[in-house]
């Protein structure tokens, strides 16, 4: 993994305002609440992080902890039941929360684009793949129909769809799961966004095509200074391409550090548990290791440490207080009263 994480300035796509301090995207104390029949709860709770120019930030965490909703909050594409209740989202220094929807539409795709976790949530089943790609280009007023078509074909080929010119006229159901996922990526990369939010962009891909897709992302990062938030459960991928990693648990960030630090010296007990559960480290014929206990219900979280009920390191303080995210040594931030050292044992 070569490290392109210098604070190199963005040479990339034209930007209306200069990025502030080399951090194209800053999320500050973002809280997003979901309304339920009986009360509401925070699915994203006081989340802060920033993404530097040309940086790849991995966002990992347990299923249902609020990663997708964090991304949707940034994009302002939240479902009806959800609402941002506090915090700021600064894109190139501009607070997206204050923008009118019409302005936001101009920003989506161009300044910040998203690959959705489940392609069918955003691909319209009644239009061909081609129509949807061409529509996206044309919505941002770029070029003629012919040009848009050529660009779409080129983009589909970039993401490894063979015979793209023919397959442009297919409907989404005629694509395989992984092909739909790559269409999502093509849609997101069409306009060469400054920031890419990729929510599980490669889960449905085999490793050879995955490698190709990751190379494409790295290439855009290197050529255009694109920054990336990579949301994924595939820790192998995070290890290979992320510069920094943020770990979420129960709608909060519990640890952030450089990728090397997270994998070599995870300090939060949840991060440690996650790495311990990796199937590649498990012995065949034995049950796969898991983190004991249940993923908590977001509606009914303890006021103390949210990982407490499952934590092997718990001390009395953990039962009384809610830990805050504190800056630890170096570039690390940590939300824990009793962190311990941990060494990932590689191989056997």
């Amino acid at each position, binding site marked *: *993994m070569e490290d392109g994480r210098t604070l190199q300035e963005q040479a990339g796509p034209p930007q209306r305002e200069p990025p502030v301090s080399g951090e194209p995207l800053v999320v500050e104390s973002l809280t997003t609440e979901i309304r339920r029949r009986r009360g509401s709860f925070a699915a994203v709770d006081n989340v802060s992080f920033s993404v530097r120019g040309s940086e790849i930030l991995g966002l*990992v*965490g347990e*299923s*249902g902890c609020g990663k*997708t909703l964090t991304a949707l909050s940034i994009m302002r594409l939240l*479902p009806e*039941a959800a609402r941002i209740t506090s915090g700021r989202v600064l894109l190139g220094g501009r607070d997206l929360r204050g923008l009118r929807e019409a302005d936001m539409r101009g920003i989506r795709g161009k300044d910040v684009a998203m690959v959705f*976790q*489940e392609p*069918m*949530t955003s691909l319209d089943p009644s239009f061909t793949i081609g129509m949807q790609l061409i529509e996206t280009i044309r919505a941002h007023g770029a070029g003629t129909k012919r040009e848009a078509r050529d660009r779409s074909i080129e983009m589909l*080929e970039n993401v*490894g769809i*063979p*015979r793209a010119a*023919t397959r442009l006229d297919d409907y989404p159901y*005629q*694509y*395989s*799961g*992984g*092909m*739909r*996922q*790559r269409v999502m990526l093509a849609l997101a990369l069409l306009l060469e966004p400054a920031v890419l939010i990729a929510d599980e962009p490669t*889960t*449905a891909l*085999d*490793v*050879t*095509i*995955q*490698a190709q897709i990751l190379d494409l992302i790295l290439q855009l990062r290197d050529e255009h200074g694109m920054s990336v938030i990579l949301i994924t*459960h595939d820790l*192998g991928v995070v*290890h*290979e391409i992320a510069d920094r990693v943020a770990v979420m648990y129960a709608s909060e960030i519990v640890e952030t550090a450089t990728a090397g630090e997270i994998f070599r010296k995870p300090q939060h007990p949840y991060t440690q548990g*996650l*790495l311990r*559960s*990796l*199937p*590649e*480290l*498990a*012995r*065949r*014929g034995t*049950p*796969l*290791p*898991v*983190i004991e206990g249940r*993923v908590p*219900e977001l509606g009914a979280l303890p006021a103390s440490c949210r990982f407490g009920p499952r934590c092997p390191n718990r001390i009395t303080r953990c039962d009384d207080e809610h830990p805050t995210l504190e800056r630890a040594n170096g570039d690390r931030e940590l939300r824990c009263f009793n962190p311990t050292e941990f060494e*990932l044992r*590689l*191989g*056997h």
Partner: protein
Amino acid sequence: MEIESSAASTQPSSSSGSGTNGSLLQVRGLSKSFPAERGGLLGRPTAWLSAVDDVDLDIAAGETLALVGESGCGKSTLARMIMRLIPATAGTVDFAGLDVLNADRQELLRYRQQAQMIFQDPYGSLDPRMNVDAIIAEGLARQGLNKAKRRSRVRQLLDVVELSADVADRYPHEFSGGQRQRISIARALAVNPTFIVADEPVSALDVSVQSTMLNFLHDLQDRFGLTYLFISHDMSVVRHVADRVAVMYLGKIVETAPVEELFGNPLHPYTQALLSSVPTVSREGPSERIVLEGDVPSAIDPPEACRFTGRCFRVIDSCRAAVPPLEDSAGTSHHHVACFNYEALPRGRSGTQGNHS
């Protein structure tokens, strides 16, 4: 984790009296072509996409066969044909003596009480207008359970997939991707199937929840002898759960072998490239990835040749002249490979590192 043992009692005895050569599922010559271009007279197709081509597959009762392969190579299409959700172009599927593709209504209903599928796309496979309770209970309609029994069964299944019972009245859009995937697992388990086609069943789960699900599926297998066709891109998961692995490339099975044999001694050039690209946390420094050159080929009107020719690093002339048949590799009768010019990798360069049992 306790799942009602009615699974055991409703286990049809017919499933143990399996096919002719001891396998529960026998696939022979299965093919599927989709019309790829319609330009002819009256919109007749002028080109065909050969999604699955002449596939043979055997799965023994109680076995887990993993199916891996390139994205778009036809895994889901194969699964759909086995479940008879789409018609096959050619071939047969034999399930415990039942000719699945020609089964009549009654037989098909019985088949569908025994064989279930976990769909690859959890969002698309859950009806947005149905709440979780209705989704999971749908398959129970034929089992004559009363309302209270159905409810408790749904709750129990939700518990198994680590969701709380009060999500039952929520709709699919109210869940995270991984939660939807677990609902889809619960639905497939509802009718106590003996055979499950799991198409990427845990791809949207974090490793801990994923492990919980896999342990549970394994547990079911241990106790009730379930059989799995497990489609996955995650090689470390495959290595852990599979008994045998079949590798597919562009509509064809190119290699099958017992799991340790395949990971330890991959023979087909595609398999070798595949295993060398697995991203891992346990490797420091750059990987020795075999990068596949050349464009991803298309399955539209493929030539009569090895379908890997365009990208293969071991291609020879005869590869372009004929389709390599899937044959026993030198030395063993368990390891089959479809290649004219395969060669084992030098020791130490094979596959992912990690678990050797």
